[in-house]
């Protein structure tokens, strides 16, 4: 199955090594806590998915043909996603540490393909079991559903490998012509099409409410009546029949055919005469680069491609020409040079938020009071969600500078100044975008609400709080998890604990920052009897000052975390 005894040995050694690595990482009590939390999270979710019966009991019995259509749709999505993967991993993907060794070793290409397929199958085993159990709980015959789903899930990786090799061969043959086709773009479009189709299926048929929540089945029948949809589902229909079979007579022919197809596909893929070496080297280098990027700074706009600077143009020195200004200029330049990723993400988030909040209050027919309500809630929603999404996606701060920390630590400025200078450009950029979205929406609606002014005044402080806290936490525990890396449970547990900690600190910050304002409001309005409007203005000013004080404290704290950062210890792994 593994093609060569040495490759089987490599698989066993890597498996054992992964477990050993996991054990080695459990030296500290905190690691155990993270592992337990992560384990509870994952296994709790799996148990809920497998054994939860809410959907099942809430619904009326589903007609067999509708059930099969649902399964067919699911299978089609899996196939399309496999196609997307094949576009990205053309040829035979081998990790960086394996590729030079394998290609120069006395191994045939067929042996390497067999090894890769076996590795992929082993990786898919868990998902196959999970989906199998899930199907067995939801479909008419548990055993057939399990076996059928398991077989499909073990066929998909082989199918994906065959596709990747076929695409690689096409690229080999067509050469330059194929290289002009933006394959990554095609795969992204395909992926986006699947996503949009799923969203469309979920939200379109219902009057306002997601269709799956109101009427889980009838829309499927309507959709499947379309001849195009039927044609698209045809290739996966045999698998659907196998999974939804209710009798042995119905199941066994499809299952036997499925096993036959698996063997045929496996052997054909292993024996196919394709020289995949150059493509594999390119794919491996590309994956290694992306994994390294993710380990350094996560998947975000800050890691998008750097654009060639236009001659004569440069980022503005917004904060002077001294050390502080230089650091801020560095981050501003990063943002501008990666403008494609920055702008794309920012615009997507802003447009999405404006569109999502556009319908708030609209049901009342845009009466003046509903307009005010829409402005109030819409602005607050844009402010909140914009802060969260943009701060997560735009990481032009310490979260993207892990590999340069040795340099950062040597900068001749007080740590708190380095900290502030690093996070300030991103803070202003995110704030500017959110303010633009809120003000733009108000202008579009042709109305005004004091909350727009409040957003303008408070947004930079709120974003500063968020970014400072995120960066301080990152500097304390600079861990980046990349899918496929070992210790997944530990990383999940750590992420959950850190997120809870962050929310707790944020809650404390808000209370501390707003408590004086609440006190002032009580004294002015409640005790001295001052009118509501002036009280609100004064309380807002006090709240503003309170948050400024808290932000200064966070910047100081961030500076402390930066001073504590140890480049020898905190390597982000």
């Amino acid at each position: 199955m593994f093609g060569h005894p040495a490759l089987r040995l490599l698989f066993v050694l890597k498996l054992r090594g992964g477990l050993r690595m996991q054990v080695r990482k459990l030296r500290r009590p905190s690691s155990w806590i993270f592992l337990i939390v992560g384990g509870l999270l994952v296994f709790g979710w799996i148990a809920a998915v497998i054994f939860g019966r809410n959907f099942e009991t809430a619904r009326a019995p589903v007609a067999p043909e509708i059930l099969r259509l649902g399964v067919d749709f699911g299978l089609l999505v899996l196939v399309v996603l496999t196609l997307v993967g094949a576009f990205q991993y053309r040829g035979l993907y081998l990790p960086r540490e394996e590729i030079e060794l394998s290609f120069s070793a006395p191994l045939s290409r067929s042996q390497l393909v067999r090894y890769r397929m076996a590795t992929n199958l082993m990786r898919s085993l868990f998902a196959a079991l999970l989906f199998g159990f899930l199907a067995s709980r939801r479909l008419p015959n548990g055993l057939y559903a399990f076996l059928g789903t398991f077989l499909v899930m073990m066929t998909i990786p082989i199918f994906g490998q065959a596709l990747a090799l076929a695409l690689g061969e096409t690229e080999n043959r067509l050469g330059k012509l194929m290289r002009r086709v933006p394959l990554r773009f095609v795969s992204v479009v395909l992926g986006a099409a699947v996503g949009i189709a799923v969203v469309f299926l979920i939200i379109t048929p219902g009057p306002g409410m997601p269709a799956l929540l109101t009427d889980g089945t009838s829309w499927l029948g309507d959709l499947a009546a379309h001849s195009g949809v039927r044609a698209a589902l045809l290739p996966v229909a045999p698998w659907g029949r196998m999974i939804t079979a209710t009798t042995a007579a119905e199941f066994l022919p499809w299952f036997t055919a499925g096993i036959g197809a698996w063997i045929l596909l496996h052997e054909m893929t292993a024996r196919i005469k394709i020289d995949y070496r150059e493509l594999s080297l390119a794919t491996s280098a590309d994956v290694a680069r992306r994994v390294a990027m993710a380990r350094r700074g996560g998947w975000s706009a800050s890691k998008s491609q750097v654009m060639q600077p236009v001659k004569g143009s440069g980022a503005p020195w917004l904060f002077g020409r001294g050390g502080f200004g230089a650091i801020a200029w560095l981050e501003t330049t990063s943002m501008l040079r990666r403008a494609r990723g920055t702008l794309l993400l920012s615009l997507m988030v802003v447009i999405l938020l404006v569109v999502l909040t556009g319908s708030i209050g609209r049901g009342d027919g845009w009466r003046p009071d509903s307009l005010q309500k829409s402005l109030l809630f819409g602005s607050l929603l844009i402010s909140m969600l914009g802060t969260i999404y943009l701060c997560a996606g735009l990481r032009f701060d310490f979260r993207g500078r892990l590999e340069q920390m040795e340099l950062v630590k040597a900068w001749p400025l007080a740590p708190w100044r380095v900290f502030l200078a690093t996070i300030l450009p991103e803070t202003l950029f995110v704030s500017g975008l959110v303010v633009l979205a809120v003000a733009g929406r108000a202008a579009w609606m042709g109305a005004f609400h004091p909350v727009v002014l409040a957003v303008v005044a408070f947004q930079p402080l709120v974003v500063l709080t968020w970014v400072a806290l995120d960066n301080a936490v990152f500097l304390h525990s600079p861990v980046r998890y990349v899918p496929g890396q070992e210790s997944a449970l530990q990383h999940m547990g750590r992420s959950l604990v850190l997120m809870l900690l962050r929310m707790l600190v944020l809650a404390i910050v808000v209370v501390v920052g707003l408590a004086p304002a609440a006190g002032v409001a009580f004294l002015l309005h409640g005790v001295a009897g001052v009118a509501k409007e002036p009280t609100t203005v004064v309380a807002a000013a006090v709240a503003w000052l309170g948050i400024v004080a808290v932000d200064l404290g966070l910047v100081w704290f961030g500076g402390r975390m930066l001073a504590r950062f140890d480049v020898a210890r905190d390597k982000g792994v």
Partner: protein
Amino acid sequence: MEPTQPAFTPEPSAARRAALVVTGLSKEYENHRAVEDLSFRVAEGEILGLVGPNGAGKTTSLRSIVGVLPIQTGRVQVCGHDLATQEVAAKSQLAWIPDDPQPFDTLTVEEHLRFSAALYGIRDWQERAQSLLVRFELSEKKDALGGELSRGMRQKLAFCMAWIHAPQLVLMDEPLSGLDPRAIRSAKDEIRRLARTGTAVVLSSHQLELIEELADRILILDRGRKKFEGTLSEARAALAMGDDQSLEAIFMSVTEPTVSP
């Protein structure tokens, strides 16, 4: 115990059996020709130094010879086996040390050697591994994970992995980078020792003094083309240089200056 090798009697290079014969090797990328019509041979027990400026095609040539890159034009024979038609037989005779060896993060040093031995069908790997670990001063690191090794340690591990199956041909790309002075000396001794047992060595490096010290013959590549092949004395004679002229002087004379973009 060291890997057992047949006794090797040095003879003039031309009279010895060829471990590597490269004929008309060319490699073209989308926009440029990386290697053009390269031909040379390396005899058993001979050390060939491959030198050239950045972008000369050294690494591309080596990666094509070891089968990492497909050969577009030309022929490569390793110990009489054609790389195109007898790929597995040819590869089983050679070892490749890339310029930046990447060990497996989760495997220990000893497991790397076990796997390498299995790749080449070596059964008595423990004895060989033990001997190599001692010679390359890696004994204390045998349980260390690949991901924990420093650049120098990775390089030493790459040597051990290449040596374990007693190859007939070893190709190395910048083999001494990252090594400390003691390790450099020990690596140089090991390369000499390997050649004495009859293994052919192709050594690519920018460290010209290393090539001068170790190589029996040199091959200078520039912009994908062979500029010179022969001994240092032959190079001096061809360029009408004095006997005291170093490889650096020869290199400067033979290669063209790189034009900055």
